[in-house]
């Protein structure tokens, strides 16, 4: 899946956006053997020690998920908060498991630690090219392969509504619609929701759990005061 590669924005807008994810090679031709799920559980448990914004299991969701009420009073109840423990407890099948970090030092320390673990599952860093390069340098790892994002053709740096695109493309599967992002931007401008509430509302739609609420809050703070 390319759910994080094409996040829209210049490199500096990824200052608080590091996604470190693991996945096993599933094709038979790859010939990978061993218990991938056990390795990925360890990957995610270790990630939880480095203060991630979210952990995401592509099959079951992230730290913030939609809720289901059984009573009419649920309509007036408090909204759920991020729950990393639920992600760890729910992992049942090997797949794409991601940890989202908003601080460089946490992401780099996690990469260094995970190298020492020698789990054997593939690990990727999705961020600015420079961020990933620095993390590899700190961990003493030469990069193996790179997938460059060439960006959306004809969508330039000064496209109108670029902040809505920045928010929407944080779910690369398109689950966070541009219309919802624009609505949340309006809600923040009108002070009907705080940037945190608006970011969390969008995050619940990201079924892989890789939506970065810290980056979203920062973008929404800019939107509120008219920074383009």
């Amino acid at each position: 899946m390319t759910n994080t590669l094409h996040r829209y924005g210049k490199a500096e807008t990824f200052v608080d956006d590091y996604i470190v994810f693991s996945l096993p090679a599933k094709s038979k031709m790859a010939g990978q053997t061993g218990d991938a799920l056990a390795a990925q559980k360890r990957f995610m448990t270790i990630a939880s020690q480095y203060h991630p914004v979210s952990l995401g299991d592509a099959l079951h969701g992230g730290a913030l998920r939609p809720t289901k009420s059984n009573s009419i009073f649920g309509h007036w109840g408090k909204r759920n908060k991020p729950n990393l423990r639920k992600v760890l407890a729910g992992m049942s099948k090997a797949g794409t498991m991601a940890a989202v970090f908003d601080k460089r030092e946490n992401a780099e320390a996690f990469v260094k630690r995970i190298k020492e673990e020698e789990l054997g599952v593939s690990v990727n860093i999705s961020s600015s090219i420079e961020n990933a390069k620095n993390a590899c340098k700190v961990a003493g790892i030469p990069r193996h392969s790179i997938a460059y994002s060439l960006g959306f053709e004809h969508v330039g740096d000064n496209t109108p509504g670029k902040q809505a695109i920045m928010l929407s493309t944080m779910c690369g599967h398109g689950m966070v619609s541009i219309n919802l992002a624009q609505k949340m931007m309006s809600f923040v401008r009108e002070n009907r929701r705080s940037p945190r509430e608006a970011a969390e509302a969008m995050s619940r739609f990201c079924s892989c759990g890789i939506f970065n609420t810290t980056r979203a809050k920062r973008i929404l703070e800019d939107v509120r005061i008219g920074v383009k």
Partner: protein
Amino acid sequence: MRINPKKCVACGNCTYVCPMGAIYIDPLLQRATINRDECVECYACYNGLSKEVLPPATVRFVRRTLANFRVRFEPEPDVCPTTAFEPDKLEWPRVVRRAFSDPRVPHESTGVSGRGTEEVKTNDVTDRVGIGEVGFTIELGRPGIGARFRDFQEMSRALAAVGVSFEKNNPITTLMTNVETGDIREDILNEKVMSAIIEIKVPVQRCEEIIRIVWDVEKRIPTQVVMGVGVRCDEDGEENIVLPILEKLGYDPQRAKTNIGLGRKVIRDLTNAAPVEAFKELENA
């Protein structure tokens, strides 16, 4: 997907959350309605909206009454207050829409969820893209536009015409009737999906040629194109071959996925490994 008219209260929340903008409030029915031709069966509405169980008739009465006083019923923006969405049983060929649009559904052809391909993310195990090669992922449909299989066919035919081979472990390739010509099954050509990826591999020398073909096709199809370019780094972890070509063509890549080379053919046996503890304050972090 369908919306149960007995439950819908036309609050309008779902009109914003649909990535395709395919949901609207029908002014005659006074209910949320789905444009089935535009709907890609991504299930963002069904899976993403939180579900509440307010009584529909009461909500409609309250809404009408409040509207007279210019007061608005306003549920949380990510909620369906009456749980009105109900999945349809999808038949062929419509079922391909969901397979390519709902990231929780693994592609049967590859066993991979999301967009169904591992690209260079497992290159350290598969060696899919080697030194001197370039792996292209050409994605159509993002952000929030969608694409029909006839658009993919336009692209795949143009690429096949110059003799490139398509990645076998890719869901679009499995839907081709002829990989030599890039033809895709005729019965799905009008089906619309959120996005999908055509994946090819060529020698570095053909990098510019492929990009120019994509540019050319992109002008003819009614959707958006975004390319990923996967390459193998050298022993020092550097990549100085493809990046200059991209820069020469006017690109200034900002973001990338970096495979850090920790994948192995044999995954570590953790049977006797020292346990690790999760961070204690995991809830409400």
